[in-house]
């Protein structure tokens, strides 16, 4: 009973953590961009305001859409949240961990993608169709890279369970893996150089253009889900690279937080220093990410042999 | 005695039918004689007589293993001939009926001949008896077909006569007393002079192969089958060819006894596979569905030759195939005849959508096509599978592969042509001619019965039949 209570409390805390902290990251990124651009920029908590406002707002639906238009974002949000809960947080471990959970994580993200694309197609808008097409297409390469990265981790740690996979550092291949995963992070979260969340030229967008028709609470769900996804990837990246398993609880938590911060700032810097790629070049970059992960995998394999 | 009756009865019947006055009732001679013949032959089949080793004629195991099938086929064709001849009442059927009956007698003779020259005489007689049947329609096309049949066939006959002379000389050279029964020849064994035996084998294989229709001596076949009526085609493909095949088997036995069995088998295998290949290539392109049947028959002769080349097991399967092929092919010829009459055309360019005009014949035609391309549970499937198995047991996987490859291409060719004829929208002209020749029960039943036999052969091959084939194999492939 007691243990259960503790476990329950821990679960609630973890849940709250994910839900509450996630929207922080876009804020930080924007701050960094503003800082680099020498502007004051929006407050770090901007997204929280937006979410609150959106949740209050009403909804306008296209005449064409089916209930799936609203259900899609909801399911996607659930999927991302579930994926996040599978992710262990350093020494605290995951709320739920089992042999092969990493595959569930990957496919939960896929589920989210499916729902978003479906919802986008609901409107029958050419722009949103374009966005959905880009999303699902680029995801093919991103998925390959992600699977390869996960393979590298499990080869290195000899396990298919996230907790044990992420305790040690990725070893010799860490740098390669970090680079690869970072690229995937940018792609999956539609950041520059793959996509530019701050532009409003529809033709150049992936994620933004998929949600043109969303409004009110559904849009809130989408935005919050996106931020959680970003946090998720950041955590995954950090844990893949840093050997948090070795550290004490406190140090680990600190390292994790610091790492996530670094990643976020990195994203901000990339966004402010780089321009968006031409769409022709996107596959090239993603393939590079895939190759990086592949090399990481090979390194991990050799490392195991030695 | 009964075995002699098998020969004499039809010949006498032929004479009487020739003298018979009424054109309308004469055709009934055919089923009548055929029925008696079937009864006799199956009686002999079930109660095989003892044949004196030196007998020139006799219902020996080989005859027992083959003749009943031919007799059965003849009876069904005879039943079909009655309505057929009534449809062609404008021509006198005197010669036709007589020739058919004479053919039956000579078939029985050929299958029972245990003597080199008797065998040759029977074959020659068959060649001649077929001539009036072939140009019964008396069209220029029929005449051309007959001319080619006669000259190519005549050449074959001449060659087999020379071959028989050679074999006789081989025995003479080996100190034989001039007894040309196969038993006596085989008993001379190695004493037979090898060069003469080999030369004789080549001549006889080519000669009787011409009658069988093995490539490249098959050239008369498409013309003859294409022009002849379904009955004649069925009897040529299912009866005359089997006589030639049994002749090859008997000669092979002598050659093997002389110690040249391996060479003989090699030649058989080569010419058999070659025939299958040629047939397959022709079938891929031909557009005439009666010539198609001829090429299919060439293919099946090739199958028989291959089977005979593969030792006892193969020969057993080949004898099985004689039965299944004769009966199934008969069904194809008869249903093709129905379709041909109703469609008023013979090529896939003229004939379409027969499934709507002659539904039953078309259905039988399709079923028969599947049957001859070795679709279970019809007879040919089992016999051909047996041959493939024999090829593997004989350690000839290459031959088996080529065999199956040919079967594949044959299947492509047949299905292509048959479905082109059966499916689609029929031509207006065909609708008219289809009304002229309606599908009466009397023309549907015979092919249906034959398909039934084919099915029965496959699903429930009677043990007595298997045992009969085994007996023939024991006679032809004595285990050393």
């Amino acid at each position: 009973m007691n243990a259960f209570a503790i476990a329950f409390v821990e679960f609630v805390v973890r849940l709250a953590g994910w839900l509450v902290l996630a929207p922080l990251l876009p804020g930080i990124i924007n701050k960094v961009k503003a800082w680099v651009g020498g502007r004051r920029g929006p407050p770090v908590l901007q997204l929280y305001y937006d979410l609150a406002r959106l949740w209050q707002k009403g909804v306008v639906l296209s005449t064409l859409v089916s209930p799936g238009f609203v259900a899609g974002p909801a399911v996607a949000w659930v999927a991302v949240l579930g994926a996040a809960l599978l992710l262990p947080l350093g020494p605290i471990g995951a709320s739920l961990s089992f042999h092969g959970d990493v595959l569930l994580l990957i496919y939960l993200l896929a589920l989210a993608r499916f729902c978003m694309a479906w919802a986008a197609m609901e409107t029958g808008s050419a722009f949103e169709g374009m966005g959905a097409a880009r999303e699902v297409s680029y995801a093919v390469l991103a998925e390959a890279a992600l699977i390869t990265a996960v393979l590298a981790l499990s080869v290195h740690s000899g396990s298919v369970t996230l907790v044990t996979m992420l305790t040690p550092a990725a070893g010799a291949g860490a740098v390669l893996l970090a680079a690869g995963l970072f690229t995937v992070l940018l792609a999956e979260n539609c950041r520059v150089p793959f996509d530019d969340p701050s532009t409003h030229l529809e033709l150049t967008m992936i994620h933004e253009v998929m949600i043109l028709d969303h409004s009110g609470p559904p849009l809130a769900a989408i935005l919050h889900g996106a931020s959680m996804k970003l946090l998720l990837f950041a955590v995954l990246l950090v844990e893949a690279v840093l050997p948090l398993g070795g550290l004490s609880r406190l140090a680990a938590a600190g390292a994790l937080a610091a790492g996530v911060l670094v990643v976020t700032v990195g994203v901000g810097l990339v966004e402010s220093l780089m321009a968006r790629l031409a769409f022709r070049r996107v596959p090239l970059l993603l393939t590079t990410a895939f190759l990086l992960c592949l090399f990481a995998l090979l390194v991990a394999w050799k490392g195991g042999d030695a | 005695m009964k075995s002699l009756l098998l020969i004499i009865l039809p010949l006498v019947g032929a004479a009487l039918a020739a003298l018979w006055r009424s054109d309308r009732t004469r055709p009934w001679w055919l089923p009548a004689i055929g029925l008696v013949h079937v009864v006799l032959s199956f009686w002999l089949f079930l109660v095989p007589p003892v044949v004196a080793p030196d007998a020139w004629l006799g219902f020996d195991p080989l005859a027992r293993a083959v003749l009943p099938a031919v007799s059965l086929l003849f009876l069904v064709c005879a039943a079909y001939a009655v309505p057929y001849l009534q449809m062609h009442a404008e021509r006198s059927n005197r010669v036709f009926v007589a020739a058919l009956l004479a053919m039956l007698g000579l078939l029985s003779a050929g299958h029972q001949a245990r003597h080199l020259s008797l065998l040759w005489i029977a074959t020659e007689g068959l060649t001649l008896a077929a001539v009036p049947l072939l140009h019964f329609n008396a069209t220029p096309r029929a005449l051309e077909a007959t001319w080619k049949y006669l000259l190519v066939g005549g050449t074959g006959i001449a060659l087999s006569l020379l071959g028989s002379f050679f074999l006789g000389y081989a025995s003479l050279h080996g100190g034989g007393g001039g007894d040309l029964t196969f038993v006596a020849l085989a008993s001379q064994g190695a004493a037979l002079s090898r060069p003469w035996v080999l030369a004789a084998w080549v001549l006889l294989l080519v000669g009787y192969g011409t009658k069988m229709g093995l490539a490249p001596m098959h050239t008369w076949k498409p013309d003859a089958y294409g022009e002849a009526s379904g009955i004649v085609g069925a009897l040529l493909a299912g009866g005359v060819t089997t006589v030639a095949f049994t002749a090859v088997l008997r000669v092979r036995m002598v050659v093997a006894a002389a110690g040249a069995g391996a060479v003989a088998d090699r030649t058989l295998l080569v010419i058999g596979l070659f025939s299958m290949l040629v047939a397959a290539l022709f079938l891929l392109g031909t557009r005439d569905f009666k010539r198609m049947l001829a090429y299919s028959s060439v293919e099946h002769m090739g199958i028989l030759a291959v089977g005979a080349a593969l030792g006892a097991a193969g020969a057993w399967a080949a004898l099985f195939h004689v039965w299944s092929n004769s009966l199934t092919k008969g069904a194809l010829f008869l249903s093709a005849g129905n379709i041909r009459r109703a469609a008023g055309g013979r090529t896939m360019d003229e004939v379409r959508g027969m499934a709507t005009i002659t539904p039953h014949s078309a259905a039988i035609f399709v079923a028969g096509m599947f049957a001859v391309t070795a679709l279970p549970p019809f007879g040919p499937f089992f016999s051909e599978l047996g041959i493939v198995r024999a090829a593997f047991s004989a350690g000839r996987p290459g031959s088996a592969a080529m065999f199956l490859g040919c079967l594949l291409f044959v299947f492509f060719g047949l299905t292509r042509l048959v479905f082109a004829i059966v499916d689609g929208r029929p031509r207006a002209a065909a609708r008219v001619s289809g009304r002229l020749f309606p599908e009466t029960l009397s023309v549907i039943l015979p092919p249906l019965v034959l398909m039934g036999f084919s099915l029965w052969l496959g699903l429930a091959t009677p043990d007595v039949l298997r045992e009969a084939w085994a007996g023939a194999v024991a006679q032809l492939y004595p285990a050393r």
Partner: protein
Amino acid sequence: MNSNVNLLVGLAIGLNLLALGSSRLPSVIGAVAVQGMAIGLMPLLLESDFNWIVALVAVGTMAVKGFVIPVLLRRAMRTANIEREVDPSIGFVPSLLLGAGGTIAAVALARALPLLPEHAGSLLVPGSFASVLTGFVLLIGRSKAIAQVCGYLILENGIYLFGLLLIRTTPLLVEAGILLDLTVGVFVIGIIVDRIQRAFDSLDTSKLTVLRE
């Protein structure tokens, strides 16, 4: 006596060459007729003691091969009013060369095959092979039905020549063969040639190519 036979065989071979060489159908028919009579004579020469059956066969052969068939052929020729083989698929000179080469080859072949001592000296075997070859050359090389029929007859004469080797030991085979050959001959010529003449109003078999793929 063997020498007489060889003489006749030599004559037959000569006639082969004549049949091959001449373009005029009458002379080809003549050659066939003479050859038929020549080989018809042989059994009588071979048989030392007189034998009814053999005599009968001999006479029948001479009658049919020497008279009946040639007459029928001539009649068919007249009705179709064709005198000569115009466009042979194998020219006359090549045919002649083939025939000559064939004859030599036949002699060689006969040497290669083991013969009984009593046949060693006789020309029967080479003669028969040569005639068979000649027959094939005519069958393949001529386009007029009549010429082909002659070729067929020469082919059969050749086979008959070989049969003479066996006539003493296995008369039935030989005689049956001969008789049936004659029937075929008559059949072919009497009926079919005649019908072809009526149906196509010509005896040029190169016209008979309707049935083809």
